């Protein structure tokens, strides 16, 4: 608008040569010849196929011609100019030859006068140039003509929304129904064209050649957000942009509400075929599928795999999804090595971290059913921890130690077990094992994650030595025949797939054997992933296994050990050893006994 204002209206007293339209036409051809940034990019990209980049254009010239011969003169001028410029362009990097050009001459004349120029449909003037002439009266007739041309040039179609209830300006409590005509890409009508079922407004006031499809406004009942099956969405513009009905409709939509549109039918059921909705200040016409789908009446998900399981952690996964929502990062970010960081890759990376240990059902987990673990579980999955995070994790662990000392009950699932389920100290052992699995899955994230594990390992309880011995003594006799089966049972209950967890089990193999009696009570309870070797148990338990307050020595040596272990790659055998004894040919068992899981592998490294 500002540019138009700068040009101003032609001065009737000026030299007619100066305000000849010819200058404009020449400038238009020159502009068409100039290579655009996009064309340049495409040309450089395609190299030897550069000739595939096209350069076609259209010149729309609104003028007042004196006669048909004047029009011919204008056409000749364009023809001539294109010819000359194409010659120039052939030897230039900044210019491109015009391959095709459409000249649309619109002759406009004052209302009340007779046109001196006749209309002419599109005609080939040369291989490059086609031309058409439209003769039209000034004022609203010109606007209507441009509206028609714009539809042709940009493949648009028109939809009239009818029955829009709108408050009257004068009488705010009454409302009348209005129509608003919209323009949009013609693909939004593709279903009508296919079925030959056009609800033509027909008697459009605007002229005989204009077609518009009429759709009825359906007053939205609720603000309920639904996911419609939509096959296309096209931007719209009202034909009469700021008229009251138009702006009433657009403001309604821009305020975030959607309107369903219905095909007007004399009889039969209501068919909703379109929806108007704005997305961030842009209004789109959504094409909704009204044809019936082959996906009707599918089996319910509860009839398929996993459909009979009833204790999925739906709420927890909902929380997980909310934490893993996406948000746009418009400014480029760079990694430490200077390469561009792709936000979407970061999102995948986060999902990977957050799912390293994520039991799907409630009866598979203890720690995620405990409010007390939340502070640790929510931060441990992070890429890096702050000092405060570490402190919180440690507090969580101390809190758990405290709970154990007080013998607080744990939310251990008793699903599938008969009787009361495992004893309290066994429950804590399961809980600690699981917590360790979670933390271990993240120790490679950072040094601070390591510290959380150190704290956990230092604090987690071991059954007191004496009690252990006592139990063992009592059980030694029936251990030989029972332990194997018992350990087998043990696993089902946990159904931990992770070899990480396995390791935890093996590590505590001693206790397990000792406690096999407890598990014996519940014969249908689960089975371990591996058959555990019957290790002859060392009578003197290692220092770290002592219960109660941890000695300064063990804290110190733990610290030194971990510090040292970080300096070299730990021998795989030692890493997985049980009481410093490494089991050989583990993979044989894995192949026989269970499916190896990638998860465990990944987090073990």
């Amino acid at each position, binding site marked *: 608008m500002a540019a138009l204002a700068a040009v101003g209206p032609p001065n009737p007293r000026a030299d007619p040569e100066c305000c000849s339209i010819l200058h404009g036409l020449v400038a238009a051809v020159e502009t068409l010849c100039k290579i655009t940034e996009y064309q340049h990019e495409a040309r450089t990209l395609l190299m030897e196929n550069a000739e595939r980049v096209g350069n076609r254009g259209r010149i729309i010239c609104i003028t007042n011609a004196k006669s048909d011969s004047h029009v011919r003169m204008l056409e000749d001028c364009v023809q001539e100019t294109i010819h000359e410029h194409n010659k120039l362009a052939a030897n230039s990097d900044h210019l491109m030859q015009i391959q095709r050009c459409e000249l649309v001459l619109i002759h406009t004349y004052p209302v009340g006068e007779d046109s001196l120029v006749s209309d002419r449909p599109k005609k080939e003037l040369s291989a490059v140039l086609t031309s058409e002439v439209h003769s039209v009266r000034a004022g609203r007739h010109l606007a209507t003509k441009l509206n028609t041309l714009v539809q042709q040039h940009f493949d648009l179609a028109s939809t009239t929304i009818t029955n829009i209830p709108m408050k009257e300006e004068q009488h705010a409590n009454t409302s009348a129904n209005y129509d608003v005509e919209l323009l949009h890409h013609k693909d939004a009508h593709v279903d009508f064209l296919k079925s030959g079922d056009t609800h033509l407004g027909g008697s459009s006031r605007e002229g005989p050649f204009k077609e518009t499809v009429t759709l009825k406004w359906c007053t939205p009942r609720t603000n309920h957000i639904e996911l419609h099956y939509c096959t296309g969405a096209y931007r719209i513009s009202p034909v009469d942009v700021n008229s009251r009905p138009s702006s009433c409709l657009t403001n309604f939509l821009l305020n975030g509400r959607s309107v369903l549109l219905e095909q007007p039918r004399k009889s039969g059921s209501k068919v909703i075929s379109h929806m108007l909705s704005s997305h961030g200040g842009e209004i789109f016409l959504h094409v909704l599928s009204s044809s019936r789908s082959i996906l009707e009446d599918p089996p319910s998900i509860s009839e398929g795999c996993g459909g009979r399981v009833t204790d999925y952690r739906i709420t927890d996964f*909902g929380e997980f999804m909310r934490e893993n929502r996406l948000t746009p990062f418009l400014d480029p970010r760079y990694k430490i090595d200077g390469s561009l960081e792709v936000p979407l890759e970061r999102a995948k990376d986060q999902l990977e971290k957050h799912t390293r240990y994520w039991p799907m059902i409630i009866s598979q987990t203890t720690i995620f059913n405990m409010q007390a673990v939340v502070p640790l579980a929510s931060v441990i999955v992070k890429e890096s921890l702050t000092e405060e995070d570490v402190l919180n994790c440690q507090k969580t662990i101390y809190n758990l130690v405290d709970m154990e000392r007080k013998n607080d009950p744990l939310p251990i699932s008793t699903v599938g077990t008969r009787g009361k389920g495992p004893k309290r100290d066994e429950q804590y052992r399961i809980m600690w094992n699981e917590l360790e699995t979670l933390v271990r899955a993240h120790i490679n994230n950072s040094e601070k994650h390591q510290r959380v594990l150190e704290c956990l390992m230092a604090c987690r309880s071991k059954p007191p030595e004496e009690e252990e011995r006592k139990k063992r003594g009592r059980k030694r006799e029936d251990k030989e025949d029972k332990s194997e089966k018992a350990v087998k049972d043990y696993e089902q209950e946990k159904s931990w797939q992770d070899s990480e967890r396995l390791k935890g089990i093996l590590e505590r193999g001693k206790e397990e054997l000792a406690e096999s009696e407890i598990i014996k009570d519940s014969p249908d309870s689960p089975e371990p992933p591996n058959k555990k070797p019957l290790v002859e148990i060392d009578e003197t338990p290692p220092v770290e296994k002592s219960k109660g307050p941890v000695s300064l020595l063990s804290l110190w040596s733990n610290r030194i050990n971990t510090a040292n272990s970080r300096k070299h790659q730990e021998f795989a055998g030692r890493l997985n050893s049980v009481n410093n004894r490494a089991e050989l040919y583990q993979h044989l068992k894995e192949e026989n006994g269970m499916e190896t899981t990638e998860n465990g592998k990944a987090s073990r490294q």
Partner: protein
Amino acid sequence: MPTVVVMDVSLSMTRPVSLEGSEEYQRKHLAAHGLTMLFEHMATNYKLEFTALVVFSSLWELMVPFTRDYNTLQVVLVTDGCLGIGRGSLRHSLATHNQRSESNRFPLPFPFPSKLYIMCMANLEELQSTDSLDCLERLIDLNNGEGQIFTIDGPLCLKNVQSMFGKLIDLAYTPFHAILKCGHLTADVQVFPRPEPFVVDEEIDPIPKVINTDLEIVGFIDIADISSPPVLSRHLVLPIALNKEGDEVGTGITDDNEDENSANQIAGKIPNFCVLLHGSLKVEGMVAIVQLGPEWHGMLYSQADSKKKSNLMMSLFEPGPEPLPWLGKMAQLGPISDAKENPYGEDDNKSPFPLQPKNKRSYAQNVTVWIKPSGLQTDVQKILRNARKLPEKTQTFYKELNRLRKAALAFGFLDLLKGVADMLERECTLLPDTAHPDAAFQLTHAAKQLKLASTGASEYAAYDHNVTPLQTDFSGSSTERL
């Protein structure tokens, strides 16, 4: 895609097939054998496919109808390639194809997207000895090249019919198996109906794009934010149980029903990620964004068929870096934890979506449009209405005045400015005695300014210049408002 099987039952189909040392078969029997194989395959691996059966000779009869109408179809035509003679025969129809009128249109191409597969109970040599093959090929051509002709390799026998139908099954009825992944959580799934390869129109060398068999979830978005996006197609995502060899349980054609049921029951009791995902998506009202290939994404969501039944559904977006303008570029979507503050707000009360477009649309701003006389009229009336309520409406009066002035200057409609100036002067003379004295001052001032602008030459005619209210002794209070 639903399938219509069209079976030729004309007399020529009863021609015997010469087989050494076995009972006599007719071509019809071979066809029935092949179709049985096709239906059995569907029953085990393509359970959700809808089929209908039509038989024809010179007349046709719908044996098993569809219960619904569909917008896409696969047609399997089974024939021996004996095309008949005289009026109404294929040969005659094709020869007179050009003479048909709109009302008497040839059925091909079908008025809906379709694939036409022709299964010939004859071998290639036999068909080539007449013009049958040419005619059948023309049928495919008429269906815009959508479809294929299958012939029997070698002598006509059960084995070769089987291998021919095997080829059709491989082409059109292979179930699409994939792995749905969300980090370490995974599930084996069947995607139904099969996602068809998508050809991107605008590319210089169109290569059909096929979706990955690893469907990787990249993150989640609220349903309100994704807001009914346009999609290419929709597919059910059905969790499947694979046996140790990696085959779907129950691929064998002669599957014992009881075995299958017990296998299904066991599979039902094993926790499956699809069910967990579906449940949470449904409860939270969210969708999962899933990567289908390079620069190709889709969404997973819970689709409710009725109150009781719902399922995990996947919709494919159009391939490209930015399928939905209101989400922006897909690659630029990242985890909220990377943002300085949670873009969804601490109380989950805001959203980073939709993205605002760079330019405001004409309907979202206050542009002046005078394509109809009423538009101009309304704008002038607005000024006059406010003029009568001066000085209370000083601000609105000048706002509207400036809007009209700018538009008039841009359109070169200088006469309008003169006209409006005259009207304002007239309003001034019509002011009632009770009017605030400021009103007269402002009207005269405004009229003078418009007149200056209408000369088109002075600095007052500059487009960026704004007419400001006259500072008067009375306007002390109104200056605050400005």
